[in-house]
């Protein structure tokens, strides 16, 4: 999971934008397992409502109004800039870049019942722009390689020769020994 922290200098509040890899069957799909990202944020819209969660399956699933992305860095940065500009974080700044746009969004909004995360975070460098700053936090979640992790089992989705990709588990890979704080 990639979690980006955004400090809003004007209010002294810190917000996050998260991009989480998930794997499941999508209700509007063909009932095969899919891997995708869910991009969400704690930033509120101008009217106080929450932003929808965005489902990203490929590099065409860009933030509303964002330019084309050639890699995942550009894609995620597009979402961060979208959230920040839509919520007018830089509004009072003399050189704010509020490229608000209400164009069609190519990315499907996604909703789910819950999304919890349990990764530890390591804060690193921050860069400021106007009156907000962005710092990245990424989690290196605990992994278990030798033993089977199983929080969610699902049916076999593909097989080849004498093996099959039989399940995907996510959320918690807990039986690991890596427990850095």
């Amino acid at each position, binding site marked *: 999971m990639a979690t980006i922290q955004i400090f809003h200098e004007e209010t002294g509040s810190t917000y996050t934008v998260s991009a989480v890899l998930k794997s499941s069957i999508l209700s509007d799909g063909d009932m095969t397992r899919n891997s995708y990202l869910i991009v969400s944020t704690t930033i509120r819209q101008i009217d106080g409502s929450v932003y929808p969660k965005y489902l990203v399956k490929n*590099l065409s699933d860009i933030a509303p109004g964002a330019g084309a992305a050639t890699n995942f860095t550009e894609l995620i940065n597009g979402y961060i800039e979208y959230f920040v500009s839509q919520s007018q974080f830089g509004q009072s700044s003399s050189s704010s870049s509020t490229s608000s746009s209400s164009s069609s969004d190519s990315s499907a909004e996604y909703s789910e019942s819950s999304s919890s995360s349990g990764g530890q975070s390591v804060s690193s460098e921050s860069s400021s722009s106007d009156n907000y700053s962005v710092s990245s936090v990424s989690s290196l979640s605990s992994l278990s390689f030798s033993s089977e992790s199983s929080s969610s089992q699902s049916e076999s989705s593909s097989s080849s020769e004498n093996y099959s990709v039989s399940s995907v588990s996510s959320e918690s890979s807990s039986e690991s020994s890596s427990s850095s704080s």
Partner: protein
Amino acid sequence: MAVNYEIYDETAERSRTISVEFLGNLLAPSFGTFDANFDYYFRIRTGVRDTSDNAIPEQLVLSLDELALNGLKQARSDTAVDYTDINDMIEDYLYDFVNGHAADKYSSGVEYRAPMSF
């Protein structure tokens, strides 16, 4: 938060796990120059060794045009076409982890790597 893909081998009657996670970090790449900006990428790795008892190196994927075989070819077929989506990319990398590959497979210049051991 990683997603663990469990691979079951019918002959050995056991499963192995390959872990995939999406991260945002300052990345010092093996190739290319370092810059102090965050990169967002997939990290694919496993603790399982191959049948030659070598560790299988982890893979970082920053874009859908970074194909599994040296960035040049897909692992499942002789094609240099970009992955269509994240799912397609992960499946191809899993295929390469599990099956290994011949030297210079599909003229990609890769070195031989044995299949994953079960």
